[in-house]
């Protein structure tokens, strides 16, 4: 049974949430919480996150086009990296 694109997207976001939670055990992280300012994504993990998003979305991320706002919240990450590409 084919998955609806919503399900695919939310599974991918769950993986990002799980990754974040593994870095910050026991911490509740809301979808609109500022991940950069609070350093929930800290600079050492940043590349690791980029690679995770690449592998989840199957798309290469162009480093030169990156801005930090793309990663600002879980909601932003979902919107910017985990949406199904228009076919």
């Amino acid at each position: 049974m084919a998955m609806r694109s919503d399900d695919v997207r939310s599974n991918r976001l769950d993986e990002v949430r799980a990754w974040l939670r593994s870095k910050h055990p026991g911490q509740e992280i809301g979808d609109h919480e500022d991940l950069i300012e609070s350093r929930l994504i800290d600079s050492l993990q940043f590349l690791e996150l980029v690679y995770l998003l690449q592998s989840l979305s199957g798309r290469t991320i162009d480093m030169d086009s990156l801005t930090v706002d793309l990663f600002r919240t879980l909601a932003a990450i979902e919107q910017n990296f985990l949406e199904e590409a228009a076919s």
Partner: protein
Amino acid sequence: MAITQTHADPDNRFGAPTLDANATKLLSMLDTAFRRLSQRQGAMPMTMPALLPVADMARLDLFVNFPHLVLLPSALKEEETSRYSSAAQLRSVPGEDLQASDLVLPTAACFGVYLHLQKRVLEKAVKITVLGRCFRRESYYHGLRRMMGFHMREAVCVGSSDQTREHVDEMGAHIEKFAAGLRLPLRREKASDPFFDPTGSRALMQKLAPVKHEFLHGDLAIASVNLHRNFFGERCEITIAGQEGSAFSSCAAFGLERWIAVLVEHFHGDWPTIFAAVSEVGGLKKDGE
């Protein structure tokens, strides 16, 4: 006319020039001016330790980020001391004759502030200003522009995210105003720290989310403002009463010898004019205090 003459390091191999009387007077005047500026922003002057523990500085990622810059003091092994007491023509001391070092020479003046505040629950945000003697092992040295040991005046803010941003905004404006008063061309640019790995994750993140701005005269950064978010608050376990999570911090820094270098160049070595200008713009009294 040389403003720095040194017999201790004639080829400037160690980046340790001597400042003559004029440069020394200017150093003091500039520090007074920047300290006063920081105090008007509410910063309390303090003096931090000259040396800081390796363990503490490792916790602040000094060795992760800047292992190439760190200078460490050490002492002779006890069993070597009598041999050295009668050594002739000593030129250098090899590592095997030294005890393991558990102290570092600070590379910036603000580290001591965060360590001083470690494990504290602060009633409210604090601002502290310090004059530090900082040390960096560089790949090359150049007059007063790049020295091994130099003076850094800093104004540090530890508080909320908003307060630390406000601190750098205000200090940045004062720095620009000070330079404008001297008619010293100064431009502000995004910058990055001299990380050991400039292609690594830290450098990339700093590029994307600029937390460091430098103030440059020509190609020389003579001041900077820096946001640390809650890095130091977290590593030093500093919290603010009523504020969730670790404290945020930020700092404004002045490289005093670099200011001397650019002022001498800008005013073509005219010391009376330099003293008068810094005195006026810095709000100093006639004797430079």
